[in-house]
């Protein structure tokens, strides 16, 4: 992964000093509340329902074991001993004190971490595929490009006061695990149709929130060296023409929609003329430098078939282990290795939460089994990307002892869920208790597996941090005359065939949610053809059968 040099370190240390001074001036009454607001937001600090919330950046989801140990230590010393993995692959602390935040940031800087631009109307943390570099279907590793974007966007002087927040995602695979269609800018590494040279397909104007939109293609194929100048041109158009009169209409998706993608593209091309081939054009030396941080670890030569046979035999002896391998591990492009998902979705714990003890243990596992690195995922789980099959059984036993081996990755109970009204000041409704009620109701894992892959996404408000629009089943907390209700949508998808879910009908009370989900799933099981997934079945039959089942009057 990327390692800071002296200059990177100096920049991040100076940021800590800057925010320490700003915090002191604020606490002394020398900075007005409204002026301090964007300063603290761009250092990851929200003021929440119960305490401030600090969102720590995990650039494109990559962490090393030393960083995770530091997060464990910080959560113990400055918080209540746990942290939360967010749907943007970041780490959130729910209980820090404002006056401690500069010290926390200094601790983070000591392990090359920060909370820069994790909030506010600026360019946020760039996200990507959690299996980058090890996925079997990868055309090119997106992480060097994420790092190039991270450096360009960090403290960008022109784009720190945009009309609204701005999120970029990059993917380099056939199946999109980075939800690039749901981002302000989505970048996909694609071959040129004639030459085969790899460049970027550039999408703009995707997004979730109040007005969910699938991104439009602004450029079918962009040569790699022009990436930064082209991004700069898009941002310039957005910064100048994006709406600033209404925060609900301020995202780039509204601008692209209002202008039409053709007109938007013309504006971008016009801006780009002045920037193209300028000093920010990427050099081969810089591209190679960044790629040099994401080279292969020292993989062993392993007989893949023999290793798989051993794991299979272990699984037959211990079906629980075998099941975990099937559900929570993924094929690796190097023979003899597997990608291991660590589920943070055990019933009884808030989805995505992890304790200090668990963090330290996972850091140890990363050192023992996975070259000292790990990843956070936008499904709010963790990943050890390079585990020898020979070590899977040991690792599973250790994870199981810590409650980290729930075999539910990609299934119903792997609920994606924002912190909701229990923590978040923006939320209309609680989301964690709904997730818990559903996990409780569907505690029969065989039934859950039989349902097949199912994304259940819960957001406590329109801001859609739980990405409910792109869940196969989406749940949105709404406020009706001061009471918490939940609106259900069906048919969302975050994959290449991305789609926005359709609202089922009138919203429900919290205590009815598990029943509603059960009715939806019973309906699905009744009408599914052979091994059809929920999403495929929905696409075949539409909303009606589900609507009838859920809203049918009792006889």
């Amino acid at each position, binding site marked *: 992964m990327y390692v800071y*040099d002296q*200059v990177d370190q*100096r*920049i991040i240390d*100076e*940021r800590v000093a*800057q925010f320490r001074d*700003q915090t002191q001036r604020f606490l002394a009454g020398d*900075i007005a509340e409204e*002026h301090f607001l*964007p*300063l603290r937001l761009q250092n990851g600090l929200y003021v929440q329902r119960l305490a401030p919330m600090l969102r720590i950046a995990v650039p494109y989801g990559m962490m090393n074991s030393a960083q995770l140990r530091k997060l464990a230590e910080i959560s113990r010393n400055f918080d209540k001993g746990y942290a939360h993995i967010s749907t943007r692959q970041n780490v959130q602390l729910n209980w820090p004190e404002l006056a401690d935040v500069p010290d926390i940031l200094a601790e983070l800087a000591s392990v090359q971490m920060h909370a820069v631009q994790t909030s506010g*109307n600026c360019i946020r943390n760039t996200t990507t595929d959690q299996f980058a570099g090890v996925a079997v279907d990868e055309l090119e590793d997106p992480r060097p490009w994420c790092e190039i974007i991270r*450096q*360009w966007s*960090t*403290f*960008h*002087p*022109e*784009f*720190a*006061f*945009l*009309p609204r927040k701005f999120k970029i995602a990059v993917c380099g695979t056939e199946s999109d695990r980075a939800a690039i269609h749901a981002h302000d800018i989505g970048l996909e590494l694609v071959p040129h149709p004639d030459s085969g040279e790899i460049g970027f397909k550039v999408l703009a104007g995707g997004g979730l929130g109040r007005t969910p939109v699938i991104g439009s293609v602004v450029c079918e194929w962009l040569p790699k060296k022009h990436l*930064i100048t082209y991004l700069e041109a898009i941002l*310039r158009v957005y*910064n*100048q023409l994006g709406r*600033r009169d209404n925060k609900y209409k301020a995202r780039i998706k509204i601008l692209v929609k209002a202008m039409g993608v053709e007109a938007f593209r013309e504006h971008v091309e016009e801006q780009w003329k*002045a920037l193209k081939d*300028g*000093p*920010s054009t*990427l*050099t081969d*030396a*810089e591209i190679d*430098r960044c790629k040099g941080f994401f080279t292969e670890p020292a993989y062993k030569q392993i007989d893949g078939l023999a290793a798989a046979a051993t794991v299979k035999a272990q699984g037959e002896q211990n079906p629980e282990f075998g099941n975990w391998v099937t559900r929570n591990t993924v094929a690796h492009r190097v023979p003899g290795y597997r990608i291991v998902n660590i589920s943070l979705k055990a019933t009884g714990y808030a989805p995505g939460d992890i304790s200090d003890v668990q963090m330290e243990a996972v850091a140890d596992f990363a050192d023992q089994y996975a070259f000292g690195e790990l990843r956070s995922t936008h499904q709010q789980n963790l990943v050890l990307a390079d585990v020898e099959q020979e070590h899977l059984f040991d690792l599973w036993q250790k994870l199981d002892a810590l409650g980290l081996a729930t075999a539910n990755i990609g299934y119903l109970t792997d609920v994606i869920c924002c912190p909701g009204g229990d923590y978040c000041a923006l939320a209309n409704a609680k989301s964690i208790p709904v997730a818990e009620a559903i996990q409780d109701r569907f505690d029969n894992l065989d039934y859950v597996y039989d349902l097949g892959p199912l994304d259940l996404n819960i957001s406590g408000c329109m801001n859609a941090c739980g990405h409910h629009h792109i869940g196969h089943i989406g749940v949105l907390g709404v406020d009706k005359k001061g009471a918490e209700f939940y609106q259900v949508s069906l048919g969302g998808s975050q994959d290449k065939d991305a789609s926005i879910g359709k609202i089922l009908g009138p919203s429900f009370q919290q205590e009815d949610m598990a029943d509603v989900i059960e009715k939806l799933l019973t309906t699905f099981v009744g009408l599914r053809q052979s091994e059809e997934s929920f999403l495929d079945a929905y696409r075949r039959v539409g909303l009606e059968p589900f609507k009838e089942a859920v809203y049918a009057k009792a006889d």
Partner: protein
Amino acid sequence: MPKLIKDGRVVDDQWQGEILQPEQIPESPAAPVAVQLEPGQGPATIPCALSNLGLVTIFFPAFTDGRCFSYARELRESGYTGEIRATGHFIRDQLFYLQRCGFNAFQFAEEVDLDACLASLSDFSESYQAAVDQPEPLFLRR
């Protein structure tokens, strides 16, 4: 005489003349003129050549209006070398970014300690991306 920060120092406001709206400026002014830009009224609305300008002020109706940052940068990229002065409701903690975008003068609407503000001009000693103050991105200089 009102004070402002210019080129890194606290100085008196030297501009004596009127500051015009873009539409008040003739196409070929006889002497250098001063123009006020504001969000929605960017450099493209200036009717004369940039070499006719002695001063450009860019007014911040609110400190969060980031359009002004792009305006300054576009003026510099178009070859304007005179004074670009931020006016209105920007804040001290934006000085570093404003300077990088091409502003070289700062006249606060609010009463502030200008000498104390000078420190914020040098919050960082290095930056990743190219801007007016450093036309080469860091990757060309590593």
